[in-house]
């Protein structure tokens, strides 16, 4: 069974998915028009219209977002066989405050659990406005074992 539903703000059902510790995929694009795909450790629920994305390295994603504020993120719920696709617009970057502190604690926990202590370090919490949120059910599409 496949089903796609689009929301204009984050429903409560996405909150446990954002907390499941599974990395998210993130696409950005430079001002010159070159797309970039990366994995982010954490997408943090701020409110029904905003999320914060962990900024851990000064990388191409960060440079792209400063040039072109649009992004798209996919968070995964493999146990519910659902993906959530968030269309985002960068708002600001926070290096202190309650959102940063909460994300910092979670990043340390993720780093410890995945053997990345000392490598994963939160540099900033990048706040994005959610332009749209799409829920995609993909159950029933896997093939039989090889």
């Amino acid at each position, binding site marked *: 069974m496949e089903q796609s539903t689009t929301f204009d703000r984050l429903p409560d059902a996405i909150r446990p998915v954002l907390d499941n510790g599974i990395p998210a995929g993130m696409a*950005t694009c430079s001002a010159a*028009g070159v797309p*970039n795909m*990366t994995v982010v450790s954490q997408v943090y629920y701020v409110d029904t219209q905003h999320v914060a994305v962990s900024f851990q390295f000064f990388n191409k994603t960060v440079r792209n977002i400063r040039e072109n504020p649009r992004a798209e993120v996919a968070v995964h719920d493999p146990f519910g066989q659902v993906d959530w696709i968030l269309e985002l617009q960068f708002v600001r970057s926070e290096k202190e405050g309650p959102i940063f502190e909460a994300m910092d604690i979670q990043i340390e926990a993720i780093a410890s659990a995945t053997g990345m202590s000392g490598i994963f370090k939160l540099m900033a919490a990048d706040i994005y406005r959610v332009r749209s949120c799409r829920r995609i059910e*993909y159950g029933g599409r896997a093939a039989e074992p090889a």
Partner: protein
Amino acid sequence: MIPGKIARFVQERANVAGMASRDADLVPHQHRVSGWRLGKDGKTITAYLPALFAEHLLEDLESNGQVALSLEEYPAHETYQFKGVFVRQRAIEAEDRALVAAQRERFVHDMLPLYPEAPVDLIRGFIVEPDLAVEFEVQEIYLQTPGPGAGARLVPPAEK
């Protein structure tokens, strides 16, 4: 040309992938990828995607051809990003399905130690049966493994 070490990574070890495209207004789109194949010429990669996760993809590629593919070995986190230009797209064929099935079993093998309580069918189900094959020519390769070297261009070598 994709270097041998990276080619072996693509063929033997990578277990998750994501693709990015963008539209005429520079709005990026991400797409979950179910499998991949290195071209015999050593210059191209074909990614296999479910239609469910390919919204905007073909319009984007036909509009501007720009594509990025990130391939990771999880949980080791070794990751490379391949950037290039769209060559062609086609429907999935039987040999593509066989390759995706083998890569799905690699994914299951690598994830089971992390999620020993999870039903195998759910882990297997994460790799969704693809509908579409998208081939692109690799023009640049970047190291994306988390750490201080992340983002370094490997192909062509970055100027010192």
